[in-house]
């Protein structure tokens, strides 16, 4: 395995804290259905990591186990702190921001209110530094509007009236308001036009580069995800079948076979 030689800072980051997120022997599922069956992988601080695989491979379940939406066995540590056994509201407090599949925006709330809910953990009255924190939240609103200018135009509009792409932007923006150290994106491209998805991934790349936020993105659209991700893991039937730098994965014939090439070979999937 070779580090991508094109980007030396990236390699430096990866070696600095290679086990920022460490997943070991992760099993997870719903009731009797065991969806994820023994995953081991690490994500370095500041890295964008893609989890790829066909429908039902356990990508979403993996992501949900990380944030506490589904229960998992094994071990998941973020910066040395165990995440398993915690509820989503607890992992959020540890800096994990999960953007769920289907976006999960608060449709009745305005765009700006959605973003403020995202900053909820930081603005509580009980905080002694509440005032400085409120200024910081105002600055973060600007920061998010900077990434997503469309959200600024619609800041007073109900989130439910936004287009799918705008809602996905809002969901990511809300997650950023948490100032997360780990951002989890579940199928951000779902139901979006290719152009919108591309724009979205460019913003994710910008966020990662400017804030060094570690990102894990689960995607069906492998091409797109591999363009942004530094590393990728390919899942099939709840197990890792391939891991490596994005470039290698892209060029690997096995991925084309297992995953990308399905439509080419059978001529019908998509």
């Amino acid at each position, binding site marked *: 395995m070779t580090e991508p030689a094109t980007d030396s800072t990236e390699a430096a980051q990866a070696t600095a804290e290679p086990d920022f997120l460490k997943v070991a022997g992760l099993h997870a599922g719903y009731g009797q259905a065991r969806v994820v069956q023994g995953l081991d992988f690490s994500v370095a601080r500041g890295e964008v990591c893609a989890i790829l695989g066909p429908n039902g491979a356990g990508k979403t379940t993996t992501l949900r186990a990380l944030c506490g939406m589904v229960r998992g066995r094994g071990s998941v540590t973020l910066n040395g702190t165990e995440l398993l056994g915690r509820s989503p509201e607890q992992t959020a407090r540890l800096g994990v921001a999960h953007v769920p599949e289907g976006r999960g925006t*608060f449709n009745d709330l305005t765009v700006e209110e959605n973003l*403020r*809910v995202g900053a909820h953990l930081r603005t509580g009255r009980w905080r002694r530094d509440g005032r400085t924190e409120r200024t910081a939240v105002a600055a973060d609103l600007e920061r998010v509007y900077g990434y997503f200018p469309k959200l600024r135009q619609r800041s007073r509009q109900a989130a439910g009236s936004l287009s799918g792409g705008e809602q996905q932007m809002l969901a990511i923006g809300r997650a950023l308001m948490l100032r997360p150290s780990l951002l989890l994106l579940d199928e951000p491209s779902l139901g979006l036009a290719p152009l919108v998805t591309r724009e979205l991934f460019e913003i994710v790349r910008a966020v990662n580069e400017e804030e060094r936020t570690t990102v894990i993105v689960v995607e069906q659209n492998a091409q797109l995800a591999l363009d942004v991700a530094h590393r990728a893991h390919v899942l099939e039937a709840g197990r890792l079948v391939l891991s490596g730098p994005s470039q290698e994965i892209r060029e690997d014939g096995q991925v084309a076979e297992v995953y990308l090439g399905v439509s080419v070979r059978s001529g019908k999937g998509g």
Partner: protein
Amino acid sequence: MSAVTELLQQVVEGVGSGAVYASLALALVLIHRFTGIVNFAQGELAMISTYVAWQLVASGMSFWLALPVTLAVSFAGGMLVERIVIRPVQNAPELTMVIVTVGLFIFVNAMAGLIWSFTVKDFPQPFPDGGIDLGGVRVDWSSLGIIAVVAVVMSLLYVLFQHTSVGLVMRAVAGNPASARLSGIRVGRVLMLGWGLAATVGAVSGVLVAPVLFLEPNMMGGVLIYAFAAATLGGFDSPVGAVVGGLLVGVAETLAGAYVDVIGADLKVGVPLVIILAVLLVRPQGLFGRAAVERA
């Protein structure tokens, strides 16, 4: 008295009783927004709050001191009900939860009877006798008082929900609890808060209606039906609808009693039932509610 002033007189009285319905309907709507069910015990919770107020006044406290104390007790009581009775079944099917509230209804009713007996108690009228004359329309101080108290409560709730960070968090939880969790909101605590608020708003209706109806454990049974009609008319997911619905139901009830001979005073209770039926047939989501749209 001319026909017009006669009509206005009826409308004013209708608004007075409508304010009480609005208050209990708002409690129902709050619970529906937060927990997704109709709480059949809402009236009984208001009834027991009213007994608390009665007990405080009977032991020598002034009404206007007893009122805030009662509301505080109701708030705590509502939070306890959520934590102890509702939380254990919150992931159960809706029907299970509704039946739990029916059980709560029977339990609270029986407890009130056990503690305070089923004999009727005289509840003090907090507002002065008499009223004012507005161009031939006589408005009792008691009606004005009820309207004023309900208006103050509604305004406070509006400010809480629209202009405070706690209110924002509560609206977020009502809209999408799963996403609220992902933003680090402790949803359980917010639901307790919601039930506490609902119990408080409901208590206002009980305390205001008690001087008119006299206090006994079954006092709120009839009021609950009017509140159901109000919430159905306004839309079960709309707080504004609950208030408008409450006032409309109050006015409709008074007008029907005064102008429709067949109905009179005895059959007035049929009015809310007719309203419920008509709304469900014509516009099931109510005036301000949104029709349920399922994404395909």
